[in-house]
């Protein structure tokens, strides 16, 4: 331990084990995709990654509860989480940017529009539309129907927006010291989040089973599943984090003014919510 107040941990085995675990997972995934075998290695890697995360975070929680962290450490965590979320924003920006590019440039150009309309020579019979139900090449069969925003997606929007509200209520309760209230509203948030995932799963089923909307159905299906899929993955991660926070509330880990882990999870959840609004508008409505 250092003489100063800023806590610098002694050596730790989790980071090195963590990178080994990530490597194992990646090798397994690659082998699975390329050679069709490697599922076992990948699963092993994934389990190792999750275990390391669990153990690493457990150390951090212990240190926090032993009072090793001062206000400056708290700020380091805040900056860290804030910039991490910014990196996630940019990750989604790449996907939204692709969606806009395809819709405003690539697809219309294939139909002969604008400065680069010579692309129409490739498939002269192609007519542009969005959602694109008729991909240029006959080798790729498009979906017969697009997903309507005003059914399941609308329900899901209501779920996620209200989950942000319930989460805020839970946070306010925590700040006022009402632990039980905080717990209950957090449970509500989790229920809404999980409902979202269930509905999303159902929507995917519909898309595959009834709309012919698949990953292989041309650019509409590609962008649709890319954006909603990565969003869904983030909702899953956010929900797991919130579940951990629920456990910690129940264990009484948080005090009125010292509960950054909860706040970080809440930031993340709100971020996921905002991404959904963007998705709802640009993937479904417009």
């Amino acid at each position: 331990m250092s003489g100063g107040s800023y806590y610098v941990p002694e050596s730790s085995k989790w980071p090195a084990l963590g990178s080994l675990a990530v490597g194992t997972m990646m090798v397994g995934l690659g082998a699975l995709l390329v050679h069709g075998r490697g599922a076992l290695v990948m699963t092993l890697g994934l389990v190792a990654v999750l275990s390391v995360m669990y153990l690493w975070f457990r150390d951090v929680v212990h240190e926090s509860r032993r009072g090793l962290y001062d206000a400056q450490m708290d700020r380091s965590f805040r900056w860290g989480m804030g910039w991490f979320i910014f990196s996630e924003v940019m990750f989604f920006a790449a996907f939204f940017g692709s969606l806009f590019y395809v819709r405003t440039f690539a697809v219309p150009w294939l139909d002969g529009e604008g400065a680069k309309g010579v692309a129409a020579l490739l498939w002269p019979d192609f007519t542009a539309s969005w959602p694109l139900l008729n991909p240029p090449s006959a080798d790729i069969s498009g979906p017969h129907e697009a997903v309507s925003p005003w059914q399941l997606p609308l329900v899901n929007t209501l779920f996620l927006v209200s989950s942000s509200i319930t989460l805020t209520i839970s946070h306010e309760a925590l700040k006022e010291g009402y632990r039980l209230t905080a717990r209950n509203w957090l449970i509500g948030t989790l229920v809404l989040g999980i409902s979202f995932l269930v509905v999303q799963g159902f929507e995917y089923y519909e898309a595959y089973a009834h709309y012919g909307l698949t990953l292989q159905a041309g650019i509409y299906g590609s962008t649709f599943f890319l954006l909603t899929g990565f969003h869904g993955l983030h909702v899953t991660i956010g929900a797991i984090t919130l579940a951990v926070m629920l456990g910690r509330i129940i264990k009484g880990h948080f005090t009125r003014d010292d509960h950054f882990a909860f706040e970080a999870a809440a930031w993340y959840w709100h971020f996921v919510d905002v991404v959904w609004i963007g998705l709802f508008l640009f993937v479904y409505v417009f």
Partner: protein
Amino acid sequence: MASNLPPKPTLEHSTTTSGGLAHEHHERPRGMLRWLLTTNHKEIGTLYLIFSLTMFFIGGIFALVVRAELFQPGLQLVQPEFFNQMTTMHGLIMVFGAVMPAFVGLANWMVPLQVGAPDMALPRLNNFSFWLLPVAFTLLLSTLLMPGGGPNFGWTFYAPLSTTYAPPSTTFFILSLHMAGISSILGAINIIATILNLRAPGMRLMDMPLFVWTWLITAFLLIAVMPILAGVITMMLMDINFGTSFFNAAGGGDPVLFQHLFWFFGHPEVYIMILPAFGIVSAIIPTFARKPLFGYASMVYATASIAILSFLVWAHHMFVVGLPLVAELFFMFTTMLIAVPTGVKVFNWIATLFQGSITFETAMLFALAFVVLFSIGGFSGLMLAIAPADFQYHDTYFVVAHFHYVLVPGAIFAIMAGVYYWLPKWTGHYPDERLGRWHFWMSVIGVNLTFFPMHFSGLAGMPRRIPDYALQFADFNMVSSVGALMFGVSQLLFVWGVIKCVRGGEKAPAKAWEGAEDLEWSVPSPAPLHTFDTPPDFKPVTH
């Protein structure tokens, strides 16, 4: 040779400590485990630097394979398929394995020392960021041995070359790049948090040394664009493995979309590789000119403007792909605009030298060569920025000449300058000046022999990434290959010099260079494992 250098500051005259220095810490793991499990910014910095040097030599050997094949026209040494893998791997290894980790290593060592912090803000995360790299690059290198060979589509991995027509190992390439990317993002988050949160009390942002400033902005760029890279390789992965149509016009996608995404990452990426270099040079030139840096504030603003502009110029790499006219014009003008803040920097360095009492230690030699040779690269960049002219230059050796001037005597010379400059702080010994000068002059001559002729062969139309060429390019290519061998061999002098310095040499005091003012020179040389456990007293220097 070294005799016309001024005497080194004597040991007595050095201030010993400031800020709390550590008493011995707990029992720590020994041997290999110590390096594997460390959370110490100095040790992790050393690991990064060693890793980077290793990759520098591996990437260098690949480059020498390329240069050997191009020594004469015709195909003599390697198959074209293998040649393509060599050019590709050379680029990937140098960019992601050598230059970027070297700067992160320097940041690890120096940022806490320069801002008066006890360590990096998140020390365990720091260790994780490092150890992802050996894993990622082992996987990347192993693709060379896989059926169908390794990546062969150029370091820019344009679709559909990297999707429809790629070797099966491409999926592994994508996954390894994901790991390297995670490492960069986490490393950058750590550096930003350290700079924003762990500065010594009283150090305002505008008191920070420029190396810290340039790294703050670089870290921002990394966090902004590495996720874009992650996004685009994820889309590739899906096109390859799940039948999506992102980069496939048959399904309504567009291969040009790949280029937009790649260069939206790629152009800021080239600034990621040069801004910390600006910071290093801005530390070295004032030290050996014994004058404060000219125009400190304008340096900061210029760095920030370069970073912002770098998001608005990406399509200058795509002038010939078939962009609408407005786009050609827009990207041409924004690109030229970047030359303004870049010029501000060059003028500031020159003004710092003006009327200084200059001495030419090895670090200073590399820094001065940086200013001159980087500017040549900047000028050829301006030529490329002119869209109609680029129709002629694009995909020729002229582009190769341009980016090697900004990256080799640019980024890499700055890294070497930084190493020579800070070695006394790291090891407690001065580097051998005689050896340093040999290394310097061999490198300068080697670099120019290698890359200057490429301007001419490029202007005359020699295409890049092709293992054979027309006879009229033979002389230029032979010179380039000889230069490349000379440059490569002279880097062994660098390794020798560093090892020698670690093992012994003239002892350095805390303030190893007479004109050095920043906070790192207030702790003993070699810097003990733990420094600034309690924050130092910081007295702002007037810039």
